């Protein structure tokens, strides 16, 4: 890429960083330091604001860069991801959003611990939440690294490493100084920028093809070299039965994982009522659905305008399809329009990563302070210190994420996100649904449900071709691969549900009828909600 690209993109991105830092200092000047404010932004956001913030949290670099790249390279098989990402929101809306808002205070563990013996459940749910968050964080960090590699034009390790460190430092500042209020505003700003950029690019693609989607598809199919097979499933996941099973596994993880993502759950605590939580979910479904429809156009547009060869030449995984498409739509390399559009898209992608990273860090620092620390600390510690712990935890998680991000630089971003979804669906969703809907659920069931999903999910990944045994795995030189699938969801999600059931039926404890009554009444009416 030329120098103009870099300068302009860096300028735009610095602008975004300046605005977000301004928001953070403005928020932190007026803060009171209460837990309510730090974890939940005072619970005073409107459904529309929260809907934008949720959309901002959810539309990560994996969707904007990764999925469009997959569509550009593999056609229809990339589109399958998008469908999973969207349909998952029905699970959130129907089963989780309102009930969690009514029952919980700050974290997932709040909902479960209300019915159970608190300490073991909090430790279990806190551990799995932090695990999911860290996996998701690493994915975003790796994405930031490869984006900068594209922008700076060299894939040198040093540039990537400094980017990962810079992103980590910024996110720690946002979260530890600004808490949920600053993070939410950053998400809103980012969502507006991302949606605006996507709309502009989509319109440009459609104008290029005279508004004829059919023509766009035909052009994409021709250019791809696969003909009409490009528009049908099977190019990426069609080969062996292992690949097909892998895809079904990923599909299950995507649709069930969203409802277990800690940073999505914690967003519902930032609105005052369950009704507002529902309306923010509806807002976010509208925004996310619209965004994904546009990414389909962008993906096929990149295939039609650039052709998969150009896309692949720039980045083998296709992660750079959208910036390249912007360059072409603006008038090609060397033209002012192309330079400007490319710089804008690169800056937006960077802003996206930064905002998502801040949201996840906040959610995981809440899990550390509110669940783990609160369960493990000495009894006489004061409530005030919990927020202090959360701020420190944000720094600690930042350091861990930076370290892992540097370590996992070679891994595929979309894969890491799929893994985070699989762990969330296996460890967090069963325990959440059981405690909301199962009268007889017990403490042992809850603890088993978490660990029974978490351990198989992580264990199967360790034994999968991702970690060892194939040329592009993390440790290509050793071979301890015993599990053929990359995504563990199809095994570990049922195991999580099974373990929860097994733990419940084998425990001597009789479920406390009155506590279930309290959970049920609170979840559906909002009585006693904070």
């Amino acid at each position: 890429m030329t120098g103009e690209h870099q300068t302009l993109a860096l300028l735009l991105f610095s602008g975004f960083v300046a605005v977000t830092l301004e928001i953070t200092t403005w928020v932190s000047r007026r803060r009171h330091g209460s837990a309510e404010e730090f974890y939940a932004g005072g619970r005073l956001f409107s459904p529309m604001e929260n809907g934008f913030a949720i959309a901002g949290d959810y539309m990560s670099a994996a969707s904007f860069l990764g999925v469009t790249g997959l569509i550009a390279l593999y056609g229809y098989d990339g589109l399958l991801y998008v469908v999973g990402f969207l349909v998952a929101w029905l699970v959130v809306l129907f089963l989780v959003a309102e009930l969690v808002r009514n029952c919980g205070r700050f974290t997932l563990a709040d909902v479960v611990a209300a019915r159970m013996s608190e300490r073991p459940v909090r430790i279990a749910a806190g551990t799995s939440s932090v695990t999911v968050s860290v996996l998701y964080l690493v994915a975003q960090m790796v994405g930031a690294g490869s984006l900068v590699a594209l922008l700076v034009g060299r894939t040198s390790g040093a540039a990537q490493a400094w980017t990962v460190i810079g992103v980590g430092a910024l996110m720690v500042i946002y979260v530890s100084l600004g808490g949920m209020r600053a993070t939410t505003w950053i998400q809103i700003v980012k969502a507006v920028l991302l949606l605006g950029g996507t709309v502009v690019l989509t319109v440009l693609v459609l104008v290029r093809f005279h508004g004829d989607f059919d023509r766009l598809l035909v052009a994409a199919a021709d250019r791809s070299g696969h003909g009409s097979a490009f528009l049908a499933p099977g190019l990426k996941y069609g080969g062996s039965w292992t690949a097909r099973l892998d895809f079904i596994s990923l599909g299950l993880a995507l649709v069930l994982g969203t409802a277990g993502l800690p940073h999505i759950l914690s967003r519902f605590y930032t609105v005052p009522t369950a009704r507002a939580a529902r309306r923010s979910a509806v807002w976010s479904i509208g925004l996310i659905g619209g965004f994904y429809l546009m990414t389909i156009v962008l993906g096929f547009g990149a295939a039609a305008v650039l052709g998969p060869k150009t896309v692949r030449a720039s980045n083998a995984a296709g992660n750079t399809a959208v910036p390249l498409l912007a360059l072409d739509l603006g008038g090609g390399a060397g033209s002012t329009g192309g330079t400007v559009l490319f710089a804008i898209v690169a800056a937006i992608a960077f802003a996206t990563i930064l905002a998502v990273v801040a949201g996840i860090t906040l959610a995981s620092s809440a899990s550390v302070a509110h669940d783990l620390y609160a369960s493990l600390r000495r009894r006489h510690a004061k409530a005030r210190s919990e927020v202090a712990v959360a701020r420190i935890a944000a720094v600690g998680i930042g350091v861990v994420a930076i370290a892992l991000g540097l370590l996992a630089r070679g891994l595929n971003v979309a894969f890491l996100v799929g893994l985070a979804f699989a762990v969330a669906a296996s460890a967090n969703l069963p325990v959440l649904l059981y405690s909301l809907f199962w009268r007889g659920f017990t403490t042992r069931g809850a603890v088993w449900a978490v660990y029974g999903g978490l351990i198989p999910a992580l264990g199967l990944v360790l034994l999968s071709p991702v970690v060892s045994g194939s040329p592009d795995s993390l440790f290509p030189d050793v071979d301890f691969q015993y599990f053929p699938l990359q995504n563990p969801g199809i095994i570990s999600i049922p195991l999580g549900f099974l373990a929860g059931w097994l733990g419940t039926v084998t425990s001597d404890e009789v479920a406390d009828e009155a506590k279930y009554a309290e959970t049920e009444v609170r979840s559906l009416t909002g009585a006693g909600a904070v």
Partner: protein
Amino acid sequence: MQSSDGRSHGADDDPGSSAGRREDHGPASRDVRYEDPWYDALGSGWGELDGTGMPARAVPSARGEQDGTAVRARDVYVAVQRSEAFQEVRSRYRRFVVPGVAAFLVWYVGYVVAATTAPGLMARPVAGAVNVAMLAGLGQFLSTFLLTWAYARHARLCRDRAALELRWDTQELTRGVQGGAS
């Protein structure tokens, strides 16, 4: 704002349901805190249920004797859970959500399985470059939007008002047993 929003719709759509029944008491519920004719009536009704239908194990004795108000606050939730109004709200929620979740999960899993196991069927052209797979994918988007709209509408019309009144009652009852402290 919430209650008036729900009320204006609920009266038209659900005359026979409990929300409709409660419509008679609607105006009174505003004054419940000060005059509470309705609050008393319901409270005594729940009290009777307490005596008859409560299983012994719901109140663990050791803890209960230590902390009187906590036990009674627990009783409130059990009583509310057993009340007809709550049962109605819950069954409305479940009657919509259970078939809804089953429908979209079956539709989604069917779509994913079809895409991986029957690519021939999915590749069948329909019109121009658009094939069955493309239509099915867009169908998933469409069904998601439709179900979102239907859920929000159902919740607004059939649950919101009744849930708000239940919340009010429950909190009043809880406050009552805790001696107005919180």
